[in-house]
């Protein structure tokens, strides 16, 4: 598939056929897993949806039914295929499988399903914003490996300034830090034409070292610079009254709403504005765009700096959105997960959002799963999201193709 999204190729390539087959085989595989493995535990599983209402799923019958449906879907996919609906069917099938898995894990007990969904959305915020930052850079032809460093630096700035001047100034400081680190990336990558992966990694090291250094040299002796009250969730009127989804989506902190708005704006402007067209053009074929009068250098600078601001908000999520303080290496690799979400989501904001939610779900499940006695070691559950990503990237995304000019410095001559 073309990354410019304007060229529609109606022919079915060998690649697509293979992918279609893989999807079908996955359905069958998931069906077998639920028929054999998930159907192995008798008992009812309580999904607590509201305070007053618990939805009870009998684990075994549900798993068996799921197995039949999934295998049927797999057969249909292998024989005929769902065409344009493949992704929708895949999404629904995966979601059902996750519910089946939860029913298996929780059989004989109950857990707050709504709470888990809420955690999923909360936890995906820095990944969503980091991924948007990555997309903005890469779509303009600048590889951003430095998302991790931007998130970490921004988290530090947000914590310190937020502790002294209040959370709003903290967010501003975090954005400023994100922009500053982005500026380093921009100057080195665009002006000095240094290898972008090298600069990106150097920024990650720089942010990790500097924040750890300052945290242990300054913050340990001055704890008053590292304590603030994180934002409380705000229930949106009317929307938050929707059962389940109201809590999961609309009883959240401002960070979540900002993340969703950012995805919306990014999607709309990438595909429906002059800016978006030019951005995609300089990421694919900057020479052509330059010849037609687009100021490639200036646009790259601008996009990389905007990306820094977005990542800055993502970094501020730690001190101001949830924890209320900064700790050494608080981001713990989330920036790299965001990078994975960029590629997993095929350099599209909505795709990255879905990928980020998958990772968020994994984190939320970790929190809940430790309370449930499943009999399988928790390490394997913790490993699952990474394994799923691996399989998805290998099987479904296949040869995912990024912006063609990503990583190459632009030379006007």
């Amino acid at each position, binding site marked *: 598939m073309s990354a410019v999204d304007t060229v529609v190729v109606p022919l079915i390539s060998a690649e697509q056929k293979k992918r279609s087959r893989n999807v079908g085989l996955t359905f069958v595989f998931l069906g077998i897993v639920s028929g054999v493995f998930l159907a192995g535990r008798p008992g009812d599983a309580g999904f607590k949806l509201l305070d007053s209402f618990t939805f009870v799923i009998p684990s075994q019958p549900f798993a068996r039914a799921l197995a039949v449906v999934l295998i049927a879907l797999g057969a249909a996919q292998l024989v005929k295929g769902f065409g344009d609906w493949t992704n929708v069917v895949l999404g629904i099938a995966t979601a059902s499988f996750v519910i089946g898995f939860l029913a298996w894990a929780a059989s004989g007990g109950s857990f707050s399903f709504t709470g888990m969904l809420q955690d999923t959305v909360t936890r995906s915020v820095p990944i969503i914003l980091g991924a948007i930052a990555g997309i903005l850079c890469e779509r303009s032809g600048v590889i951003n490996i430095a998302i991790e460093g931007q998130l970490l630096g921004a988290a530090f700035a947000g914590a310190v300034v937020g502790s002294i001047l209040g959370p709003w100034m903290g967010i501003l400081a975090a954005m400023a830090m994100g922009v500053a680190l982005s500026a380093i990336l921009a100057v080195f990558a665009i002006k000095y034409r240094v290898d972008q992966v*090298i600069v990106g990694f*150097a920024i990650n090291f720089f942010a990790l070292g500097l924040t750890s*250094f300052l945290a*242990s*040299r300054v913050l340990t002796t001055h704890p008053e610079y590292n304590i603030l009250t994180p934002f409380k969730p705000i229930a949106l009127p009317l929307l938050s009254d929707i059962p389940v989804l109201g809590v999961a989506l609309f009883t959240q902190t401002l960070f979540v709403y900002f993340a969703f708005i950012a995805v919306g704006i990014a999607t709309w402007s990438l595909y429906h504005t002059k800016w978006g067209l030019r951005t995609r053009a300089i990421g694919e074929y900057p020479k052509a765009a330059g010849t037609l009068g687009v100021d490639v250098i200036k646009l790259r600078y601008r996009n990389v700096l905007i990306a820094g601001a977005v990542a800055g908000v993502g970094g501020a999520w730690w001190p101001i959105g949830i924890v209320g303080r900064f700790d050494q290496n608080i981001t713990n690799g989330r920036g790299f997960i965001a990078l*994975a979400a960029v590629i997993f989501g095929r350099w599209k904001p909505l795709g990255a959002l879905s990928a980020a939610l998958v990772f968020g779900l994994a984190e939320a499940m970790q929190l809940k799963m430790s309370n449930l006695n499943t009999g399988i070691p928790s390490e394997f559950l913790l490993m699952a999201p990474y394994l799923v990503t691996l399989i998805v990237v290998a099987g479904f995304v296949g*040869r995912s*193709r990024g912006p063609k000019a990503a990583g190459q410095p632009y030379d006007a001559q």
Partner: protein
Amino acid sequence: MNIVGKSRNLAARIARTSSFRLTILAVLSAMVVGAFIIILSDVDKLKSGDIVGAIQTVGSAYWALVIGSVGSLRAISATINSATPLILCGVSVAIAFKAGLFNIGATGQMLAGGMTSLWVGFSMNGPGIIQVPLAILAGAIGGAVFGAIPGILKARTGAHEVITTIMLNNMAAFMVLWLLKTNLFQRAERTDPISKVVTASGHLPRLFGFISDRPDLIAHAGFVVAILAVIIYWWFLQRTTAGFEFRSLGLNADASQYAGMHIKRLTVMAMMFAGAFAGLAGAAEVLGTYGYASQNFAGNIGFDAIAIALLGRSTPLGTLFAALLFGALQAGGRQMQANTDVPIDLIVVLRALIVMFIAAPLLIKAIWRIKVAPSSTGQTFRGWGS
């Protein structure tokens, strides 16, 4: 090049190359920036107006850095000890770079190799002359198998190694955590994830073992393995067909394919070799430094290795020197933290600054007002694949 002007004296020749001068200036620049960071973060002294005191701290911190890395036999031994896994992981990242692949997965490969060599290390009981090489070999194999996974995925499905190695790093970390709690690996009568101890005959011999009564000289024979790895890497790149094909693939994948090379096989091979070197690093840490495995015995070495390979431009000698420099910073940093109130995290900043300055020769040129040949660091990233 003018043959008459070419000096026979190697040291003088190296000193005149622009990349050597560039490195020295980059280190100097990083130290200057680091000094500012030390002064500006001295909040209490600055508040009381004691600027002289803050500047003195810089002096004592940097002095401790030097003393702690090369100031005594003990310091040199500590430097060698820190450098050993860095050299091996540096070669791991470098060999992948040469073939146009970005191996972020050295951490995971190191964990895999460390665990396999640990298993040989505690389940055998001598003789050392057989057990140690076997355990090291097991480390290389463990790392190679784990490293082959992203290679195979890339070759067969085109999945980009940057993502797959990040995922595999995380999976390896959980796998190790689980393994350390199984009966096979967990130390008897312990409930925390910590492994059995390598048997006495399985330890890598200490490098300075011939000096009696100096248990503080912690460097071990893993350093010899690391030096051998650098030599093998050099030999492989310069003297074998596969090495030539690696370099060719790294320079231009399309041309290599056109020339009839098996790109897929080379990709898998490159990742396997990278994994093997990282696995050796894991073996060296487990068999030499610790004598057992805890949850994160790989630490940040896999990531430091990326900086090392970049700094050394992926050449065998460059990688070796970069790793020694980073090892010296690590060892000196510990001394600095002990002597002054400057935390060891400063060296992470210094490393980042060195890489940054090295990567931008134009910047160094502007700062120091010198002429530097535009020695490109080379393009390490060749797009997200097609």
